[in-house]
C-alpha cells in the first residue's frame, strides 16, 4: 500500500500472556506512558492506549491537556520519558535511530499549523513525502496531481502556500499527509480554522481513508463534530486518558 515498499514486515510482537491478546495486533499501543518537558510536571501520565487497525478515534481535552504532545509521540518527534510505545507491532524503545524514518513514513500527519514549505508549489509540497522516500519524479507528479484533484485543488497545482486560502492550505496539508497511503493518519486540529461546513467535508475525507483501512486519530476541540460523527472519543484530562465509546450516535 505504501509507495516505497516498507522495509518492515507487519510482524506481531512476541506475545506473552495475557493470551487473549495474542494474534491481535495494535497499530498503536501505549503502556504506562509518561511525558514531561525538561524538569516540568508530567504532561502525560500513566497513559494506556490501544488503537486497532482500521479504527477511528477522536482525541479531545481542554487546551493544554497534552493532545499535541501525545500526537508528537506517535509521529516520533520525541520519545516518552517513561513507559513503552509500540508502533506497528514494534517496541519503539528497541528501534534504532536509523530505522525511525521508515516508521515515520508509515504515519501521515496533518499539523495544526500545516507546516507547508512556502517556497515550494502545492504540487511539490504534497509530493515531498514521496520524494523523500525515493519515488521518481514522474510517478510523483501523476499521483500528486490526482490527489490534489481529489481534494478539489486541480487548478492550484502550481500555487505556493502564501497565495492559498486557509482552507486550501488545509487541504494541501491533508493531501501531503495521505499521499503515501499511511497506515496511521494523525491530525491535530484539522478543523481549527475553517467553518463547520468545510470541517465536515474535511472529515468526510478522513472517513474515506478510514473506510480503506487507515487507522485514524484526530485531535480536536470541535465537540459538536465529535458528537455528530460518533467515533469513539479519547479524552485527555489531567494528563490521563479516558475512553468514551459513543455507540449511540453516528
Amino acid at each position, binding site marked *: *500500500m*505504501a*509507495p*516505497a*515498499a516498507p522495509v518492515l514486515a507487519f510482524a506481531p510482537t512476541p506475545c506473552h500472556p495475557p493470551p487473549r491478546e495474542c494474534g491481535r495486533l495494535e497499530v498503536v499501543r501505549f503502556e504506562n506512558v509518561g511525558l514531561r518537558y525538561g524538569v516540568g510536571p508530567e504532561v502525560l501520565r500513566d497513559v494506556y492506549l490501544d488503537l486497532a487497525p482500521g479504527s477511528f478515534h477522536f482525541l479531545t481535552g481542554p487546551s493544554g491537556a497534552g493532545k499535541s504532545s501525545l500526537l508528537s509521540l506517535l*509521529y*516520533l*518527534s*520525541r*520519545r516518552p520519558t517513561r513507559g513503552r510505545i509500540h508502533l506497528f507491532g514494534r517496541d519503539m524503545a528497541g528501534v534504532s*535511530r*536509523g530505522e*525511525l*524514518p*521508515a*516508521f*515515520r*513514513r508509515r504515519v501521515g*500527519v496533518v499539523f495544526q499549523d500545516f*507546516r507547508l*514549505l512556502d*517556497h*515550494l508549489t502545492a504540487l511539490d509540497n504534497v509530493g*515531498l*513525502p*514521496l*520524494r*523523500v*522516500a*525515493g*519515488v*521518481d519524479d514522474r*510517478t510523483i507528479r501523476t*499521483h500528486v496531481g*490526482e*490527489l490534489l484533484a*481529489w*481534494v*478539489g485543488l486541480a487548478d492550484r497545482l502550481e500555487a505556493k502556500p502564501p497565495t492559498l486560502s486557509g*482552507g486550501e492550505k488545509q*487541504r494541501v496539508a491533508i493531501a*501531503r499527509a*495521505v*499521499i*503515501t*497511503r499511511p497506515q496511521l493518519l494523525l491530525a491535530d486540529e484539522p478543523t481549527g480554522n475553517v467553518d463547520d461546513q*468545510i470541517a465536515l*467535508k*474535511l472529515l*468526510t*475525507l478522513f472517513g*474515506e*481513508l478510514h*473506510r*480503506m483501512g487507515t487507522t485514524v486519530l484526530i485531535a480536536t476541540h470541535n465537540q459538536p463534530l465529535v458528537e455528530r460523527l460518533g467515533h469513539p472519543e479519547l479524552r485527555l484530562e489531567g494528563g490521563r486518558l479516558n475512553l468514551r465509546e459513543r455507540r449511540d450516535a453516528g
Partner: protein
Amino acid sequence: MPADAAAGPPPGPKRRDQTSLLERALRTVLAWTRGDLALAYGSTRLHLPALVAALVFLSGLVLAGAATLSDAAQRWSAGLVGAVTVEIPAAAAGDPLATVERVARVQAVLARTPGVAHAEALPAERIQALLAPWVGAADLSGVPLPVLIDVTVAGGATVDLRALNVALDEAVPGAAADDHRRWLVGLGRLARLALAVALVLVAVVTIATAGAVAFATRAGLALHEQAIDLLHLIGAPDGYIARQFSRRALLMGLAGGALGWLAATLAVLMIAQAAQAIDPGLPLPGLLGLAPMLKLLILVPAAGFVAMASAHWTVRRALARLP
C-alpha cells in the same frame, strides 16, 4: 471544497516496481545533480565560492612554485650526478708550465684514475661565455684563462675524490676536482623544504575551506530549520537532508575551485612570460607554464570534495541531535 471532491477512494501510488540496478544507479546520480528542495545557502551562496576561489588560487600558486623548484633541482642534479669537474688554474705570467702542458698532465692523471670513463676540456668559448656575466663582452684573447675539464664517471662507479685531488695537486699545483656533492645536497634540501612548506599550506587551506563551508552550512541549517524539521518528521533519512546541502556545497566548491585555478594559471603564465622576457635561457621560469598547472587541475575536484564532505558532515552532526 466541492462536495463531489471527496467522492471515491483517494488515488495513491502503487507499490514501486522492482527497479534494476542500473536504474537505481542512474537515480542516485540524478539525485546528486537535481535541484531538489532549493534549500539554498542564502546570502552565502556567492561569498563561499569566492572564498574557495581565493584559497585554491593561493594553494595553486604555492604548489606551482614548489613543484617548479623541485623540478628544477631535479634537472640540475640529474645533470650533475656522475659528473666531476676538474679546474686547472690559469698559468700565471712566467709560469714554466704552459696551459697545454698542464692539461696534458691532468688528463694523464685522470686516465690513471679508476672509475673515470671520459674526460674532456671545455672549449675556450664556453669558458668565455661562463665568464661573460662578470666581465662583459671584453676581449679576453690575451688573458690566460682557467681550464675546466668535464669528467664523466663510469656508470655505477665512484671516484675516490680525495686520492684524485692529491694526485692532481702533485701533477699541477692548484688543480682540484669537485663532484658538486655539497651543492647537490643543499639543492635537494631546498627543494624538499619548499615542497613541505607548500604541503603544510595546502593542509591549512583545506582546513580553512572545510571550516568556511561548515560555517555557511550551519547558517543554512538555521535558515531552513522549519523545513528541515518537517523533512525529518515525514521520514526523510539524515542522508537525504544532508544531500540537500552537500550537493550545493559540491557545486560551490567546484565553481570556486575552477575560478581559483584559472586565476592561478593566469598568474603563473604571466610570471613565466615576464621571466622569458628577461632571458629566454633562464632555466627556472622555463619550467613554469601550462603543463604543471594542468596537473594542478586536481585542485578543482579536491575543493569540491572538501566542500561537499564538510557540508555533509555538518548536517549529519546537526541532525543527530533530533530524535
